[in-house]
C-alpha cells in the first residue's frame, strides 16, 4: 500500500530542516546580539572614524569639550528616558531648561546668602521650579488622562513664555562680583574639575549612575518600567500606576532645569531662548539607544551611548568642517538608520 521510498523522505527532510534551523538560529542570535548592542557598535565605529579622520579627535581638549557640551543633553535625555519608559513623551524639556537657567541666574542675584551655600540654594530653587512644572504636566497626564504629547506641548509653550516673562526678555548675566555666581562660572569652565575632568561631566556621571542604579535596583525604577510595559497588568497587581507616571514627569522637569543651570554656567548668561530643539535631540538619543516610544524598554547606559553617538556625529562633522545645514540632514539620516537597524529585529519578534 505505501511506498517504502516515501517512508525515507520525511526523515531526510527532517534532518535537512534541522540543519537549516540550526544555522538560522546561529544567524538569529548573532543578529540579536548586533541589534541589542547596535548603538554601541555605532559609537565605536564613529569613534574610529573620527580618530582616523582627524588627529585632533583623541585629544584631551576635544574630548573634554565634547563631553562638557553634551552634559545638558545627557541630563535631559535621562529625564526623557524615564518618561519614555512609562510610554510617555516630554516636549517641554527645552523650555523648562530655559526657565531653570533664568531662575538660577535671577535667584543668585537676589539671594542674601553668599558663597557655596548660596549657589546650592539657587540651584535647588531652579531644580524645584523644573520639578514643579513637570508635576503639573504629570498631573494632567496621570490623573486627567491627557495625551502626554498634548500636555507637554502645552507646557512647552507655557514654560517658554514664563522664561521670557521672568527675564523680561533679557539675557540674565551671572554677576561676576558675587562669589556664588563666580562659583557657577568656574563650574562651567573647561579648565577646572578634578582629575582633569570638567565639573559638568562629573555631574552628568553622578546623575547617570544614580538613575542607572534606581532603574535597576530600586522598586521605583522597576515599577516605572513595568508601568510602561503593560499598564493594565501593573494596575491589576495593585500598583498605583498614576504615581509612577507623575513622578516620571517631575524627575524629567527637575533634570531639565538642572540642564538649564549647566547651560547658563557654560556661557555665563541665561537666555530665555536657551535650549531650543533640545527635546528632539533627547528623544533621538533615547531612540538611538534602543528605547521604545511605546514604553517599557530602554536603559540609562544605552541612552548615554545614544547621547554620545549624537555628539560624535556633530563633532566629526565639525572636525571635517561640514557646514551647519548639511549637518542637520546627515544627523536626521543617521537617526533613521539607527531605528531601522533596531526595527529589523522587531519584525519577527513577539507582539
Amino acid at each position, binding site marked *: 500500500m505505501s511506498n517504502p521510498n516515501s517512508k525515507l523522505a520525511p526523515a531526510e527532510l527532517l534532518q535537512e530542516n534541522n540543519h537549516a534551523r540550526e544555522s538560522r538560529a546561529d544567524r538569529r542570535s548573532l543578529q540579536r546580539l548586533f541589534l541589542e548592542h547596535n548603538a554601541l557598535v555605532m559609537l565605536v565605529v564613529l569613534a574610529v572614524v573620527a580618530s582616523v579622520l582627524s588627529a585632533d579627535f583623541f585629544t584631551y581638549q576635544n574630548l573634554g569639550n565634547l563631553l562638557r557640551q553634551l552634559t545638558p543633553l545627557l541630563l535631559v535625555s535621562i529625564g526623557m528616558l524615564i518618561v519614555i519608559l512609562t510610554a510617555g513623551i516630554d516636549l517641554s524639556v527645552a523650555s523648562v531648561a530655559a526657565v531653570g537657567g533664568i531662575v538660577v541666574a535671577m535667584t543668585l542675584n537676589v539671594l542674601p546668602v553668599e558663597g557655596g551655600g548660596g549657589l546650592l540654594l539657587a540651584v535647588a530653587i531652579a531644580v524645584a521650579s523644573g520639578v514643579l512644572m513637570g508635576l503639573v504636566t504629570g498631573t494632567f497626564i496621570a490623573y486627567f488622562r491627557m495625551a502626554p504629547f498634548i500636555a507637554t506641548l502645552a507646557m512647552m509653550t507655557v514654560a517658554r513664555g514664563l522664561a521670557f516673562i521672568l527675564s523680561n526678555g533679557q539675557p540674565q548675566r551671572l554677576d561676576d562680583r558675587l562669589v556664588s555666581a563666580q562659583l557657577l562660572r568656574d563650574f562651567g569652565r573647561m579648565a577646572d574639575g578634578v582629575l582633569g575632568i570638567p565639573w559638568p561631566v562629573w555631574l552628568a556621571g553622578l546623575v547617570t549612575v544614580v538613575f542607572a542604579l534606581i532603574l535597576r535596583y*530600586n522598586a521605583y525604577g522597576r515599577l516605572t518600567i513595568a508601568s510602561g510595559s503593560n499598564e493594565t497588568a501593573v494596575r491589576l497587581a495593585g500598583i498605583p500606576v498614576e504615581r509612577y507616571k507623575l513622578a516620571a514627569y517631575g524627575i524629567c522637569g527637575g533634570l531639565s532645569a538642572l540642564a538649564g543651570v549647566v547651560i547658563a554656567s557654560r556661557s555665563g548668561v541665561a537666555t530665555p531662548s536657551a535650549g531650543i530643539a533640545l527635546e528632539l535631540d533627547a528623544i533621538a538619543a533615547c531612540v538611538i539607544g534602543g528605547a521604545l516610544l511605546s514604553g517599557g524598554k530602554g536603559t540609562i547606559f544605552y541612552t548615554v551611548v545614544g547621547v554620545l553617538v549624537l555628539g560624535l556625529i556633530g563633532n566629526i562633522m565639525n572636525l571635517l568642517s561640514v557646514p551647519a545645514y548639511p549637518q542637520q540632514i546627515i544627523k536626521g539620516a543617521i537617526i533613521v538608520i539607527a531605528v531601522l537597524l533596531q526595527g529589523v529585529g522587531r519584525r519577527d519578534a513577539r507582539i
Partner: protein
Amino acid sequence: MNAMHKPAVEMLDISKKFGGISALNSASFSARAGEIHALMGENGAGKSTLMKILSGAYVRDAGGVSMNGEKVDIRKPGDALKLGISIIYQEFALAPHLSVAENICIDDLGKSKGFVQWAAMRKKARAILDELGFSDIDVRQSVGSLPVAYQQAVEICKALSRNSSVLVFDEPTAVLTSHEADKLFRILDELRRKGACIVYVSHRMDEIFRICDRATVLKDGKTVGTLELADITERGLIEMMIGRELSDLFPPRTPCIGEVLLKVEHLCAGRLVRDVSFEVRAGEVLGFCGLVGAGRTETMRAIFGADRKTSGALYLDGREIHNRTPREAITNGIGLLPEDRKQQGVLLEMSIRINGALRPDSPYTGRMGWIANSRETQGIEALRQQLAVKTHSIEQLVGDLSGGNQQKVALMKWVDAGCRVLILDEPTRGVDVGAKTEIYRVINDLAEQGVAIIMVSSEMMEIIGMCDRVLVMREGAIAGELLGERIKEQEMICLAMGVEHHE
C-alpha cells in the same frame, strides 16, 4: 479493506513543525463518505493544524493525503477546493457587502467573461438555498445584514456550490444559539444522507454524541485513536483527550470549609452585573460558570475594584470593606488572577523575577525602595519551584515561556501575597494538561491553607472536578446554585441558558 469503505479522505503520518515546535507529529486521520466524523482534542492538540493542512492553508512537512484511495497533493487552498474539500471556519470567509447570490457563486464571478450572468447566478444560489431549507433567505440581500446563523448557511451553500464532497466544520456552533444549532444539525444530517463526508471539530460533548458517528482524538500532535461513538462514554472520551484518568487530572482535596470570609450583597456594576449576592467561605472552592457575556468577569472585576461598582456592598469577616482600586482590594486581602493573561496577567517583556515580585508591598523591597537582590532571587526561585515553572532561570522573559508556564508566573505573586480570598478568572485557559494539573494542585493547596477560592471557568470539567459549590450566572445575575451531586454539565448548561431541565 473493501472498495465500498475506502475512506473519502485519509491523512497518513502527517507532521508539521512551526519554528522548531512540533504541532503535528505523525498524526493520521481518515473519514468515510456518508458519516459525520468528530475531530477532538484539547487546545493545541493539533486539530486546526491538521485541518489547515487538509485545506491547503498550511503545507505539511511529512506524510501523505489521499482521497478515495488515490494520492493527492494539496499545496495551496486552490488545490483543496478543486478536490472538493471545503472548510467552514468560525470566522466566515464572506464578502459582507456582496449579495447572498454573489457570495454563494463567488467562484463564478471571476470566470464569466465580460458580464456577470446575474439571473443564472441567482437561480443557482436560490436552488442551493432551497435544497437546504433556507427558502426565507433573499439571494439579493447583502450578506453583512444577515444574522450570524444565516451567514453560516451562506458559507455552507458556497461550499456546496463548489460540489464539495468533504466539508470541515470548525466549531460551527460557537456562534449559534441553540435553536440555530438545531437547524445546523438538520442540515448536517441531510448532507450525510446525501453521502458527504463531514468532519466536525468541536469541544461540545453533547453535540458530538448527538450528531457524530465516529470520533478521532488527537493529543500533542499525535492520533490517540478513532472509535465509534456508540462504544464510548463521555467520560471515556475526555480521558482519551487528556491522556489520563480524570481523577489524575484533578488532584484530590479534602475540603475543610470554615467561616464565611467574603460576602457580596446586591452588587451592581455596568450593564453586565445586576444585583449579584453570594458568599464564599474559608477553604472553599466556589465555581462561577455561565455563558460568555453572562457577567462573570465583570462581577469579579467589580469586587476587585478594577471596575467601579454602582451599588452593593462587600463584607470581609462581617466587616464592610471598600475596594475602589485593585490596591485597596489587595490591602483587604483579595487577589485576582485576570482572565486575559497576556494583556492583564503578566508583563511579557519582563523577567519572571519582576513578574513574580510585582506587588505593591513586595517583601523583597527594603528601605527607600531598594531591592534586596539575593533575598528576592531566593524567594522567587522558591516560588518557581513550588509552581513548577519550567525554565532555566528566573531572568527569562515571560513572553518566551509556554502558555502554561506564563499562567504559573501570573499566579506566583498571589501564592506569595497571603490573600484571604483569591479570584481566579479562567485559570487554565490556553494551558496544556500537565500545567493544568499543577495549577489545580496549587489551587487546592491554597484552599487547604484556608484561602477562599473563587474560580470562574468556562470549562465544565474543570468546574466539576474542582469546585465544592457552583454558582451559575445568566445575563448579569446569579441564575442558580449547584451543590455536590448536582454539579453536572447538564444542570449548569440549563441554568446558564435559562431552560427548564427535567431528569
